[in-house]
Each structure stands twice: as structure tokens, then as C-alpha cells.
């Protein structure tokens, strides 16, 4: 499939190969996930494509290793170095997501009921079984001895929610990739509007740029 895509891309316009675009996309996914306070949607097609290629590349490397040609030794070093770089990107990306899922499990469990693209099937499975284990453990060790009214882990009674949420107002550094209209800044004395112009670098609140980041108009740095 990839090869066909690459050929099509090279015929239609002087564009960059799909693999290079995917590297940009994966790198952006990683940086966005590492720097944002909130979980971003899971880019399923992108990760699937990258993982497919990683698998194929491992097979290629195994084949070359089998031939034992001294000339191909150096090629092998390059291929393996690049493979490790890719594996690091994917791994760090997934681990950053798991860190957030672990931090706000109930919040994201509730969100996935309405937004299916937020977590990958594996992440959902992890979240569910991890939560099941945790609540069974809490119940077994101390919650069961509490009065019935105090046993809930997601109580919202009295106007105070027990469910922890990521802080949407955290400040983030971002780069504007496409003109993205205006955002409001709540200053100490007044609210001002600023224009997000292509190429600008800003320190802004996450809530102000979250939608633009998901659209791809803004990337975090």
C-alpha cells in the first residue's frame, strides 16, 4: 500500500512522500501529547501505518543480517539506528498517554462514553481493567467498612466533584501553522483578543488553543 501511495504522490504533485509526512505527523503527535495537559484524540490510521512499516523494517533487517555480507554491515547500522528512533517516538507517545490515563482515569472513562476516538481499543481495555482492579482493591481493603454513603469514588454531591480533571487553563507554548482566527486572553485587568497568525510562537492557555490543535492549525512546542 505504502509504495502505491508514494508513487501516486510523486506523480500527482511535487509532494513529500507519505512516509515523511507520517514522520512529521507522528513527531507532532508525540510533542503535542508530551506538552499538553489534556489527552488528545488517538490517531489510529497514523499509528497503524507506522507500526506496519516498523514490522516490515524489522523483517528487512533480519533478512540483511542473514546474508552476512560485510558490505551491508553499515547499512544495517543505519537501518537499526533509525528503527530505534521510531520505536522511541511511538513508545514515548504511548507512555505519555498512559500517564494521563492513569492520572485522571474516571474523567477519561466518562469521556470515552461519548467520544470514541479519544482512546485506542487497547487503551480503553487498559483503563477498564485497571480501574476494575483498583476499585476491587479499595473495596476489599477499606471502602467496604465505610458507611454506604461514603463508598463512592466518583461522588459529585454537594457541588464538589471527586473526579479529578486535567487543568484546562494550563499555559502551553505553541506554534501557529495556519491563521487560526482570534483567541481571548484573560489578563489581570482586561480581556484582550489576539490574532493567531501563521508562524507565530505563543504562550497561551490550553483552553484557548485546544480546538485549533486538534484541527491541526496549531502545534504545541
Amino acid at each position: 500500500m505504502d509504495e502505491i501511495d508514494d508513487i501516486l504522490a510523486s506523480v500527482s504533485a511535487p509532494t513529500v512522500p507519505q512516509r515523511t509526512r507520517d514522520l512529521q505527523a507522528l513527531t507532532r503527535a508525540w510533542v503535542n501529547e508530551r506538552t499538553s495537559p489534556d489527552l488528545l484524540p488517538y490517531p489510529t490510521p497514523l499509528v497503524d501505518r507506522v507500526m506496519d512499516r516498523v514490522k516490515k523494517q524489522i523483517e528487512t533487517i533480519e533478512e540483511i543480517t542473514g546474508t552476512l555480507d560485510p558490505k551491508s554491515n553499515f547499512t544495517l547500522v543505519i537501518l537499526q539506528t533509525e528503527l530505534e528512533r521510531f520505536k522511541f517516538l511511538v513508545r514515548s507517545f504511548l507512555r505519555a498517554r498512559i500517564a494521563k490515563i492513569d492520572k485522571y482515569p474516571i474523567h477519561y472513562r466518562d469521556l470515552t462514553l461519548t467520544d470514541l476516538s479519544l482512546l485506542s481499543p487497547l487503551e480503553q481495555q487498559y483503563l477498564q481493567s485497571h480501574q476494575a482492579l483498583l476499585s476491587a482493591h479499595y473495596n476489599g481493603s477499606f471502602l467496604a467498612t465505610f458507611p454506604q454513603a461514603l463508598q463512592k469514588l466518583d461522588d459529585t454531591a454537594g457541588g464538589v466533584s471527586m473526579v479529578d480533571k486535567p487543568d484546562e487553563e494550563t499555559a502551553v507554548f505553541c506554534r501557529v501553522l495556519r491563521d487560526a482566527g482570534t483567541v481571548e486572553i484573560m489578563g489581570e485587568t482586561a480581556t484582550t483578543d489576539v490574532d493567531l497568525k501563521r508562524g507565530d510562537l505563543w504562550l497561551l492557555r490550553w483552553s484557548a488553543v485546544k480546538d485549533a490543535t486538534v484541527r491541526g492549525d496549531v502545534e504545541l512546542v
Partner: protein
Amino acid sequence: MALPLPPGLTASEVGFLCEMELVTVIPRQRLEGLELLGGPTQPLNPPFPTPLPLWLALLLKKQKRANINPPAWLSVDGLSHIHDFETDTRTAEVFSPSQALPPPAGVRHGYEDYLSSDVIDFAPPFLANSSTTGAQADALPYHWLEVGHLLLTHAADDFDDPEGVRRLLRDLREVRMSKLRKGFKVLDAGAGVKLNGVGGMEIAEVRGFVGGMVDGLRKINRSREESRREREAEDRENGLGGSSYQDDEDDMQL
């Protein structure tokens, strides 16, 4: 299993990113084009300069299979010019402009998935000409400090005057850092500071301080901000002149 690091890239992660920048390599050995995961590389034919990602260029350099041609901005001339701009009293408030982004990648329809690579805009470290020999001489790329440091450490013999470049790079870093710190006087709870021209490593360096300060101020000012927001919302409603008693009642319930 979960990543134990707080949000925000660490210095070594920024270093990892900058190794994806393209640099110009002058091969000493032949090497056929490789099918890498990040796209095909061009075949190496000595002595024709070829663009390669920095991590690969450093690998070739270490094995003495290639030399690296430093970009135009990473020279005594280029850096002194930028240094003059940074220290000029007329431009004391701004950073020297960064390299321009390439034109936007096609039209987006608005229904693409998050990070769909059909229409993806390229940004540092994937710009074609930020650290190659075709790079602008009078603008610093986003990863200027990291690229400069790596090239000076691993390919010092490819520079005409490595000591001069190193000294200028250090001066530039100090001038810009003090500018950045001065700039933070305007920081308040609302964030909203434009940082055009600031580099990746510089952001990584101040992220903890700036993030902590802005978030701290916001928490202190939370009640004031909320009351102002309510007042402004009220003003807006009154400005429209359409708010009846009934509407207010509805708002209260929300």
C-alpha cells in the same frame, strides 16, 4: 510503564527532535539510497553535497565517511550579523526573526481526522532548508542552539573557525536569554505572550519557570477572574439589550 516525566519536553528530548533537521553532507564514500522509515534517502556520490537528517550525518561523520557542511547562519559572518541585530538598541525588544514557514500544505476541508497526514503542515525540525547549505544566512532556525552545539562538538574540523563560531554562539545565547528574562516582566495570569523568534532549547529552558509562574498567578487570581468573567458576560447581555427577567432566571439555573 507510564511516563514519569511532567508535561513539557526535556532538554534531551529537544535534542532528539533537532537531530531530524536536514543538514548538507559531503560524502567521502559511496552509499546507495536507503529506504528508511522516514522516507528514502538520496544516494551518496562523492563529492556531491547531499541533504541528510542530522542523526545520520553525525553517524557518517563519526565513521569518517562524510563531512558536514555547516549552514550559512552557523558561521562567523552569519552569527555576528544576527548578534548585531540582537544587541542593537532599536531592536532591543525583539528577537531576530526566525526562518519563514513553507507555504501551507493544500486546502483543508475541515473534516480531516486529528493529524491526518493528507494535508499536514511542515514545521521545524522538518523544514527543508533550515540547516542545510541553502539555509538563510540572516535568520536563526528554531533549533539553532542544538544544531550549532552538535555540529561544533562532533564536526568541529568542518568549520573554518570553530572557536569563533563557538564564542559567538555563546554570546548570542546569553544576549537572548537575558532578553527572554526581561520579556517575562509582562507575564501575568492570562498568559498570552508572543515569543516569535525564540528557539526550541530556549523554550525548554524557561518552560518550568514560566509555566509555574503563570499557573500560580492564575490560581491566586482565580476568584477575581471569575467575577470579572461573570461581569463581562452580564455586560454583553445588557449590551444586546434583549435580556429580560426570564433570561436571567434561566442563566441562574445553569
